[in-house]
């Protein structure tokens, strides 16, 4: 068995990304869809640090990208949950099939 290197880590992050994608496709509930999205963002973060560590160890760009992605993910989750709670208040459900107000 070859020692663990960049390809192994990329396979891990790919698997995590597609697990998140599977969840995003099968879930109907907005909160669980948001949770799948968080999994996908985390797999992207793993990619960034892996490339930074194994291919470009002379600078820290990947680490900074991860820090900014985590910040933006936190802001995005807060806004998304505010929207979800507002939707629940108006239509009493957070199922995506029930959110039909913007359909014409």
């Amino acid at each position, binding site marked *: 068995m070859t020692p663990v290197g960049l390809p192994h880590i990329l396979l891990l992050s790919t698997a995590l990304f597609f697990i998140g994608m599977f*969840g995003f496709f099968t879930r109907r509930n907005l*909160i*669980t869809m948001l949770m799948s999205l968080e999994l996908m963002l985390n797999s992207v973060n793993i990619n960034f640090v892996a490339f930074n560590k194994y291919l470009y*160890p002379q600078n820290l760009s990947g680490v*900074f990208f991860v820090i*900014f992605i985590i910040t933006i993910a936190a802001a*995005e989750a807060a806004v998304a949950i505010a929207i979800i709670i507002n939707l629940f208040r108006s239509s009493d459900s957070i199922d995506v099939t029930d959110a039909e107000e913007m359909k014409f």
Partner: protein
Amino acid sequence: MDFKDIFFYLIAIYILGTGIMAVSTRKIFRASIWLLFSLIGIAAFYFWLNLEFLAAVQVAVYVGGIVVLIIFSIFLTQKTGNQMAKTGTQQTIFAALASLLGFALTAYLVYQHHFGSNQTQELDASIENIGTQMLNPGDGGFLLPFEAVSMLLLSALIGCIVIAMKIKKEETA
């Protein structure tokens, strides 16, 4: 195969197993707890890469912030004991097929591509180095994105308040 590799495989199995449980369990509160475990596993992976600061940020922001926010919103909107509605079989099959095909394609590309290796020096991700570069306005510094992100956080904060605010009827009239 030394200890470090064994730990990598353990962490990978842990992350993927809890991730699969998080997207497949039908009780929404359990899904959020599985997501919590998966995020802790990713923090462990950052420790495995010797990136202690990132692991700390991961635990503080994701585990301590986002998952708590998600659990709060579950309690505000759901009956947590109930099972979620079952997804249609056709939808599940197609979603699994799309994910598996995508995974196979990407894994094939990763397998085919030969990555050069650059192990001439170690990544210096000490907190001192990260802090110096983060607030450095000169070459290779990240002061401008730092400020931009602070503006984004402020606008997200205001946006959340505006969206979630209850507007009283007599005030709007």
